[in-house]
């Protein structure tokens, strides 16, 4: 029998490759005290994939304190908190041993896709333990799509002309780029997709891509993956990738910023995202989260959801009450009440308002899932079968080899403040950063070229005195140990010549630009510019921005890590955004390991 076509049944083996992954397609938040005091009510912790946390917290706010939360044996208080599907699957498979670091052990789990449940049960079975994830109904769905700026979709003739991954490959490989479609001004075809080791969208896209390569919708085999034409196809697609990353909002936020400047067509031509993201973007809320004071403002150039001709996969968002011994009868009954509550038609209408397709079929698929918003309720017409476990493992292994190689400069602030204590056992911020950076080196593939530069005022005796190249660029496969050794020996020194270090590093990356690689700087800084010789931020931003535009652009992305509570988050964010990259917040030094993992997922 065919396996159910859902989303990505065999993440098990994928997840086994990841010790801690961020997953899903919106930034992870924390539990947060958003829902108030539970009082004497029994708390039901609900681990929720990040893209729907706002919706579930809305539901919880209505449910808590209502009659529905009053049971014969007491009241219940539901507490949804954001937890990536992969991270929760990992923890549940281990019995959730680290509540302090990973959040409260949940009684209910709602991952992005129901297939994550099979992952947990498989892991438990491997350890001789009983399954804890029962079959559960999805309460909302959203398919994977290829989001394209409308003029680009129009140029391809979509929707009259079906578009699939095969068409994208053709474009990606064509030296004419968009010139083939009469738009040389748009430059080469640029694809945005997330890292399949981290993101549900990324893994869905990888599967869809392989199916497109072999011309099937089911039965992807190991032999298929080894075909020379399939390998060629995969390399072709990867070659057009702008950068990877752990979440799709990185792409959508960058696109939105470019759109505001009238330059959305030069950053990325297509992004593999969930349909709901297209709706949010077109509504003027590219990451699906409205920050305080933020108003949704529709972009100048909307996105169109292209439903791949070859078929696609769904995220089906189940509501799973765990069959675990830590779930009390009261919690189970309360969870059932809450599960029924979110399936009620009026709440399913709210699901729809958020851009998801309601799981309750009594509720129509209606506005905002309408053509005017760039999506098509009648699509997709095909789904793809989840490959067998061995095929999934092989696909991921091959992706690691086939993905676009990177050239990355690690630019590390070693100013005096990095010597501040960060933990109660006497570790400094620099100590923690060094450990995280060394561990992150394993995420690079051997042919990635990585260099290490440190910066602080008066670091070298000769000019340039504010930075020193400790390890020159070279394939990391040949110098991983050297890099680790140099990082290990870093010590905090003096001030922070941030602008000079960034400017000169950026210029040197431009000078030695590698067209067949993702070119990037990973900047780690805990402070703000302290160099009176160079305080020209605006000039720096202009320089960074101008080099990323135009057909002959040489885009170098600057991914910034704002480390510790003294980091100049605003400036670092501006620097990152000027290069169409992203800022990563590690204001809590304890989070630096997770943040480094997220940053390196871009390559």
């Amino acid at each position: 029998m065919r396996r159910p076509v859902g989303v990505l049944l065999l993440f098990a083996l994928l997840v086994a490759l990841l010790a801690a992954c961020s997953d899903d397609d919106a930034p992870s938040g924390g539990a947060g005290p958003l829902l108030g005091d539970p009082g004497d009510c029994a708390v039901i912790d609900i681990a929720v994939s990040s893209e729907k946390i706002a919706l579930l917290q809305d539901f919880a706010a209505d449910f808590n304190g209502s009659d529905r939360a009053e049971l014969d044996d007491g009241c219940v208080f539901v507490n949804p908190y954001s937890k990536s599907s992969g991270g929760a699957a990992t923890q549940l498979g281990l019995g959730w041993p680290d509540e302090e670091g990973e959040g409260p052990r949940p009684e209910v789990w709602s991952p992005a896709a129901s297939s994550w449940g099979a992952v947990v049960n498989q892991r438990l079975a491997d350890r001789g333990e009983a399954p804890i994830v029962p079959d559960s109904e999805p309460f909302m769905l959203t398919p994977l799509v290829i989001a394209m700026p409308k003029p680009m979709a129009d140029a391809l003739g979509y929707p009259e002309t079906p578009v699939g991954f095969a068409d994208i490959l053709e474009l990606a490989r064509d030296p004419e780029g968009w010139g083939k479609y009469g738009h040389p001004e748009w430059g080469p075809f640029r694809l945005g997709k997330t890292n399949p080791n981290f993101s549900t969208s990324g893994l869905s896209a990888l599967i869809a891509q392989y199916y497109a390569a072999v011309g099937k919708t089911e039965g992807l085999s190991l032999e298929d993956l080894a075909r020379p034409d399939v390998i060629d196809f995969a390399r072709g697609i990867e070659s057009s990738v702008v950068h990877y990353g752990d979440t799709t909002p990185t792409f959508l936020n960058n696109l939105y910023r470019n759109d505001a400047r009238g330059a959305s067509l030069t950053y990325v031509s297509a992004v593999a995202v969930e349909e709901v993201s297209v709706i949010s973007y077109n509504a003027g809320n590219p990451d699906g989260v409205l920050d305080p004071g933020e108003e949704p403002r529709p972009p100048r150039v909307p996105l169109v959801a292209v439903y791949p001709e070859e078929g696609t996969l769904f995220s089906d968002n189940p509501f799973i009450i765990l069959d675990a011994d830590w779930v009390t009868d009261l919690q189970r009954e309360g969870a059932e009440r809450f599960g029924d509550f979110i399936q009620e038609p009026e709440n399913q209408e709210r699901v729809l308002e958020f851009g998801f397709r309601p799981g309750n079929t009594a509720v129509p698929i209606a506005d905002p899932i309408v053509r005017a918003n760039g999506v098509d309720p009648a699509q997709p017409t095909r789904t793809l079968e989840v490959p067998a476990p061995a095929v999934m493992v092989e696909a991921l292994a091959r992706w690691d080899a086939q993905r676009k190689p990177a050239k990355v400069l690690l630019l590390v602030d070693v100013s005096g403040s990095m010597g501040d204590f960060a933990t109660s056992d006497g570790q400094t911020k620099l100590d923690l950063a060094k450990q995280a950076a060394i561990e992150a080196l394993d995420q690079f593939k051997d042919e990635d070229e990585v260099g290490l530069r440190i910066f602080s005022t008066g670091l070298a005796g000769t000019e340039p005195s504010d930075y020193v190249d400790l390890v020159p660029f070279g394939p990391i496969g040949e110098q991983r140990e050297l890099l680790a050794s140099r990082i290990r020996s870093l010590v905090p020194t003096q001030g922070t010549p941030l602008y000079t270090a960034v400017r000169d590093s950026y210029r040197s990356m431009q000078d030695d630009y590698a067209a067949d690689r993702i070119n990037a700087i990973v900047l780690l800084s805990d402070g703000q510019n302290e160099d009176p010789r160079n305080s020209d931020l605006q000039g720096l931003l202009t320089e960074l921005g101008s080099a990323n535009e135009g057909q002959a652009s040489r885009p170098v992305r600057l991914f910034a890590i704002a480390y510790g509570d003294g980091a100049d988050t605003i400036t670092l964010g501006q620097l990152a955004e000027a290069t169409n990259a992203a800022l990563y917040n590690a204001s809590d030094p304890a989070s630096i390991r997770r943040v480094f993992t997220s940053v390196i997922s871009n390559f």
Partner: protein
Amino acid sequence: MKRLFAAVIAIALIVGAAIARSVLDDDGASSAPVGSGGDAVRVVCADLLRVACAGLEGDVEVTYEDAAVTADRLATATDPELDAWVAPMPWPAMVDDTRARAGANPLFSEQPRPLARTRLAVVGPDDLEGCGWRCLGDRAAGELKLGSRPLATSGIGVLTLAAAVTGWFDGPTFATNDFDPDFERWLGGWSRRLEVSPDPLTRLLQARAFLDAAVELEATAEATLAAASPDRIAGLTLLYPAPVATVEAVLVSTGAGTDDLADRLASALEAAGWRAPDGQSLELPSPGVIVALRSKVR
């Protein structure tokens, strides 16, 4: 003013009556049926008949599980740990057939009490009209994405399997020695490609990309389609592939205290769209043949 006073009195009387009724009901619960073990009657109810058993909760101890799960347990059990089983035919007969082959005593010495009937239906596009079970098997072996519960491990799945094979043999009077290579190819062709889901009809209505058609009990399908929004059911029809298969819910007992349950179960099923049993043949293969078919697709 008088009118208002009268209304208040009326409401007070109604509330008083409701309280009195509640007290009487509570008293009634204390005289709940007692099973053969001296405790509350234990009823195991097939998942697909949940709508029938929900009304028994509180009066008896009700456990829900798939008929296939119960059957597998009862096939080898020395103590069935139940007083009554509410299940579709021919599951009880299959249990006793399996036990007999293993040299065990039958569990259900009394005849099953028929409760209600419904048909096995398919919800699918209009162009499936006139396509019988054999035709459906042919189509499902190709491009048609037919959704079903698991054929070997679910109550409805096994009935679907029996119905489809009855279609291949053009009637229920066949035996396992009629399984020739043509049949094996046909069975393997569609059963391997079936889209398995715990709720195929809902899945079909959630997204047509998942499925083209889904097997469901007629009563359940009618209720689901009636509740669905019009856009979800556009272009879909409720079909009864030939030969039309009938599902009969029955109550079988292994102990005492279950006499008054049948009427309540039958009423609940009728309210849920099932029909009264009419004594007609179910046109299903023999229990032994169904057991054999089940192991073939396991």
